[in-house]
Each structure stands twice: as structure tokens, then as C-alpha cells.
């Protein structure tokens, strides 16, 4: 039996997404009710939530690349065995990481809290992926469409910045707090940029396929967008560390570069949406909807991103829930909407599964519930963050008093998070059923 390896990644990605949302929702309630479900405390829940959501982003983007290259780019994979090894290594390492978190074994740092030794199999799995990808795409003669550039960049920079994020194991970095924090957030900023490359490349690919127009991913605008994204990935990370006493030029450079990449992506999606025929919108109604939703979230997120990149505003928002709103707006509103679009495109393509009327209704309601809940989620986080930022700078209240004052907004945020969980469950369960029935048929 030979399953589409891309679909295996997609299946795992949906499981990771649902797991990540479950632990995220649990964390949100523990945030406001510290005694809630003590069996799995917040310090275990938060890394479970973050790691699973990051896995969702990587697995679904990688699954898309493994699926699209042979199927649509006329580029058979260099080695299917390597792709299978990649899947197994990712899956087994993931199981180890989840087990470590459940047993409270940490040792790493924020976002990569697992013991540092587990970074080695992750790195190896990406080396395997990189070899397979480059050996596959270098067969392509002539101009590469921009998504091949973006995927290549995402993979290369993941390897580079993941290694950079582990420089702390060397005393030169670890024993110097300012250097350590600077390098950590330089790496994290570029790492986020590297997965954005994978995700935005996927968005361009899906748009090209739905429209059936190969010129858009080869246009000058698309390539300039890619270069701007790359510039942001490399140099636009320092808004995370404005208050860390580094050399001032680091802050100025980042401030100047800001978040221009999203503007361009937004323009491309807008152009594409306006020019698409109604028939294609109807045929690909699910992938289309999620791409359009991502466009709206790009607009909202870019306003927030630009504002918090201004140092005079950042001094109030840094370390508050506004930063969370920005991160969640990007991870759910932009990345998840784009990746769900790709996931639904692939499932539709590979399984030819016909959703029943009820299933279609469930997905539609789930779509709206997710997006409305996300809007409320971001509004409550922004209000809580604004209030916290002002109170912290004014310095009139102790930390606990500030948290008490903003707790009504945080409770509302937790309920909105539950809405996102339910909405995405409704959206992803029917496609998950489609994949399972596809695997059964293949068996």
C-alpha cells in the first residue's frame, strides 16, 4: 500500500491542530482560574499548546509541499523513502516531546522547552527534508515560480535559525544575558519568518491552482513580495527586544524595515480575489473561503503589527497581552486560515469525497464560529493588554492588582478561545472523516 505521503502529513497536522487547540483552551482557563484542572498544570499545558500548534503549521505546510511537487509541478520526489523517514522522525520526536512535557521534563527555552537533546532529531528531520526538496526541485529547468523560492528559503532558514536558537548551549552566549536574549530573539524572529515563507508560498500555490493562472506566481510583484518577506525575515525581528540594552542600531534597523511583507501579500490576494470567476469560487468554495478570511486577518494584523513596531507604542504594549493578540492573529488568522485552505484543497483533490449537506453546514457554521470567536478573542486581548500596559508604566498598582483589574477581559478571552476550538473542530472533523475513509479505501 502506498499512501500519498503528503496526505499522511496533512492527517497528522489536523491531529496536532486539534490537540494544540485543546491544550490552548485549557491553558486559557487556567490563566484566569489557576486551580482549574490541576492534574495538568499551566507550566505543562502551555508548552504542549505551543508545540502542537507549531507542529500543525509545519506538518500542514510540509504535507502540502510533498503533495504539490509531484502532483502539480511535474516534479516527482527525489526519494519517497526519505519522505517516509522524515514523517516517522517527526512523529516519534513529537511523541517524545509530548511525553517530556506531560512528565514535566523541560530544560530548553521558551517555545522549545523540551530537553535540548531532542533538538537533534528535529534538525536531522529537516536535513532530510532539505535534501529531498532541493534534489527534487533542482530538476526543474527554467524560471522557478516564486513559491519554489519561498519554500526553499523557508527550509534553509529554518535550519539556520533553529541552529542559532540553540547557540545558548555554548557558554559564550549563555553566560551573557544581553547577548543571549538578543541572539534568542534574532533566531526566533527569523524562524517565524521561515515558517511564514512556507505558509505564504503555499497560499500563492493554492491561489494559482484555483485560478488556473500560472503567471501570477511568476510575476515581478510576486518576486518583490518574496524579497521583502526575506528582508523582514532577516532584519525585522528587533521589536521583540526594544527594551533590551543592545546597540541602538539594531532597534532602528528593525523599526525601519517594519512589517511591509504583509501589505504586499494582501495586495496579491486582493487582486486574485477580484479577478476570479464565480464558477471557480463555487467549485473550490472551502479553500476559497479560508483564503479570503486570511486576507481580512492580514489587514487587521498589519495595523497592530505596525503600531507595536513603533518604539513609543511598543514601550506600553511590550510584555502585555497585545503581543499575544499579534501572535495569535498571525498564527490563527493568517497562517491557520491559509493552511486550512491548502489542507481542504488537498483533501478535496485526493479523496474526491462528497460532503453531505449536513457536513457542509457544519463546516460553514464552524468557519463563522472560528472567525467571529477569533475577532472577540483579539478584541479582549487588546483591551486587556492596553490596560495592563498603561497601568504598568504608571506604576500605581502591584502586578496582582493589575491582573485582577483586567481579569474580566481575560475570562472573556478564554471563552472566545473555546469558541475557536469548537469552530475549528466543526471545520476539521468532516475533512478528517474524508481522509480516514480515503486511507481505508487504499487499504
Amino acid at each position, binding site marked *: 500500500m502506498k499512501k500519498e505521503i503528503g496526505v499522511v502529513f496533512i492527517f497528522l497536522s489536523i491531529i496536532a491542530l486539534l490537540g494544540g487547540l485543546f491544550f490552548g483552551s485549557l491553558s486559557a482557563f487556567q*490563566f484566569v482560574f489557576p486551580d482549574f484542572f490541576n492534574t495538568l498544570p499551566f507550566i505543562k499545558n502551555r508548552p504542549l499548546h505551543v508545540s502542537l500548534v507549531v507542529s500543525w503549521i509545519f506538518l500542514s505546510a510540509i504535507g502540502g509541499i510533498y503533495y504539490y511537487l509531484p502532483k502539480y509541478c511535474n516534479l516527482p520526489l527525489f526519494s519517497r523513502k526519505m519522505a517516509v523517514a522524515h514523517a516517522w522522525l517527526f512523529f516519534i520526536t513529537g511523541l517524545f516531546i509530548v511525553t517530556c512535557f506531560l512528565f514535566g521534563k523541560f530544560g530548553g527555552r521558551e517555545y522549545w522547552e523540551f530537553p535540548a537533546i531532542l533538538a537533534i532529531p528535529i534538525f536531522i528531520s529537516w536535513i532530510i527534508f532539505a535534501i529531498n526538496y532541493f534534489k527534487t526541485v533542482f530538476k526543474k529547468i527554467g524560471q522557478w515560480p516564486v513559491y519554489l523560492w519561498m519554500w526553499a528559503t523557508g527550509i534553509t532558514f529554518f535550519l539556520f535559525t533553529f541552529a542559532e536558537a540553540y547557540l545558548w548551549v555554548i557558554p559564550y552566549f549563555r553566560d*551573557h544575558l544581553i547577548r543571549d536574549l538578543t541572539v534568542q530573539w534574532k533566531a526566533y524572529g527569523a524562524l517565524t519568518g521561515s515558517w511564514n515563507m512556507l505558509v505564504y508560498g503555499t497560499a500563492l500555490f493554492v491561489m494559482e491552482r484555483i485560478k488556473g493562472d500560472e503567471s501570477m506566481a511568476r510575476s515581478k510583484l510576486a518576486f518583490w513580495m518574496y524579497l521583502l518577506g526575506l528582508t523582514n525575515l532577516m532584519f525585522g525581528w528587533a521589536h521583540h527586544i526594544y527594551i533590551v540594552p543592545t*546597540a541602538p542600531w539594531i532597534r532602528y534597523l528593525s523599526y525601519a524595515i517594519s512589517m511591509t511583507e504583509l501589505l504586499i501579500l494582501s495586495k496579491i490576494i486582493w487582486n486574485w480575489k477580484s479577478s476570479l470567476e464565480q464558477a471557480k469560487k463555487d467549485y473550490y468554495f472551502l479553500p476559497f473561503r479560508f483564503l479570503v478570511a486570511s486576507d481580512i486577518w492580514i489587514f487587521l494584523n498589519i495595523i497592530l503589527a505596525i503600531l507595536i513596531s513603533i518604539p513609543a507604542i511598543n*514601550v506600553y504594549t511590550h*510584555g502585555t497581552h497585545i503581543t499575544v493578540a499579534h501572535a495569535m492573529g498571525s498564527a490563527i488568522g493568517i497562517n491557520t486560515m491559509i493552511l486550512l485552505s491548502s489542507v481542504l484543497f488537498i483533501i478535496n483533490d485526493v479523496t474526491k469525497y462528497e460532503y453531505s449537506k449536513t457536513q457542509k453546514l457544519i463546516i460553514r457554521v464552524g468557519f463563522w464560529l472560528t472567525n467571529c470567536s477569533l475577532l472577540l478573542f483579539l478584541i479582549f486581548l487588546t483591551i486587556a493588554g492596553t490596560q495592563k500596559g498603561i497601568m504598568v*508604566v504608571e506604576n500605581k498598582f502591584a502586578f496582582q492588582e493589575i491582573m485582577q483589574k483586567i481579569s474580566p477581559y481575560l475570562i472573556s478571552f478564554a471563552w472566545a478561545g473555546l469558541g475557536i476550538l469548537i469552530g475549528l473542530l466543526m471545520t476539521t472533523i468532516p475533512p478528517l472523516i474524508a481522509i480516514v475513509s480515503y486511507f481505508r479505501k487504499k487499504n
Partner: protein
Amino acid sequence: MSTRLKRIFFWSLFLLFIIDGIVIYSSGSDNDPAQKFLTEGAKKGKLLFQEYNCISCHQLYGLGGYMGADLTNVMSGKGKGEVFVKTFIQYGTKGMPNFHLTESEVNSLTEYLNYVDKTGISPVRDFEIKYDGTITQTGSQ
């Protein structure tokens, strides 16, 4: 745009990225007035800080979790200090678990937080906003 030109753009940016990285690893981040407070205990404390995943709830320089307070200047904060910190670490609170740390671990964590305290200020409360939207820190904590 030709593939050659695209490659030139890519590799030029990549070269700048490498130079930027080298400068950041060296002179861009070498400002650490607190090196003399980085004792052996403080070095152990940093690793314990990671081992117990303190950053999940707490922040240093506003980076980290949101459940607990920013710990950058907890050692010199008004009404805080060493005894305050040790009590929290040793016994926990309603929102913070008691990790049942040994005395040596508590001391190491305290030494680490003492080192962190001397490196700078967070959150920034005294500042002037300049015409271009940047800020200048004006006072101490």
C-alpha cells in the same frame, strides 16, 4: 526578472544577513554591566530557570509568559528583594506551584535573578518620546 538577477538579490541579502549576525554576536550585544555578578551559582540558576520552565509564566525584559510578574528587577524592586524572592521560590503561591527545591537550588536561582537585575531595566517607566517615534530612557527603575 531573470533567474540570474534573482540569485544576485538573494545572495546579496544573505551576505548582509551573515554580516549582521556576526556583528550582533559580538559588538551589537556586548553591553553587560553585570558580568561581575555572574557567579557560578548564577550560571546554575540560569539552567534551573530553564529546567523548571519558569519562563512559561514569568518574563525577563518583558519576554516570556503572562501569568506571573516580570522578574527582571525583582531583586531591587520596591518592597521586594532577596527574602521576598526566596520565600516565593521556596513555598510557591496560589498561582505558582511549590517545586520543592533544595536550599542550594533556591540560592542559585536567587543569584541568577540578582545578576539579571543588574543588567538593565524592565519594564521601562521613565522615558522621553522623540519626534520620530523612538524613545530614550531617562531614569532608573
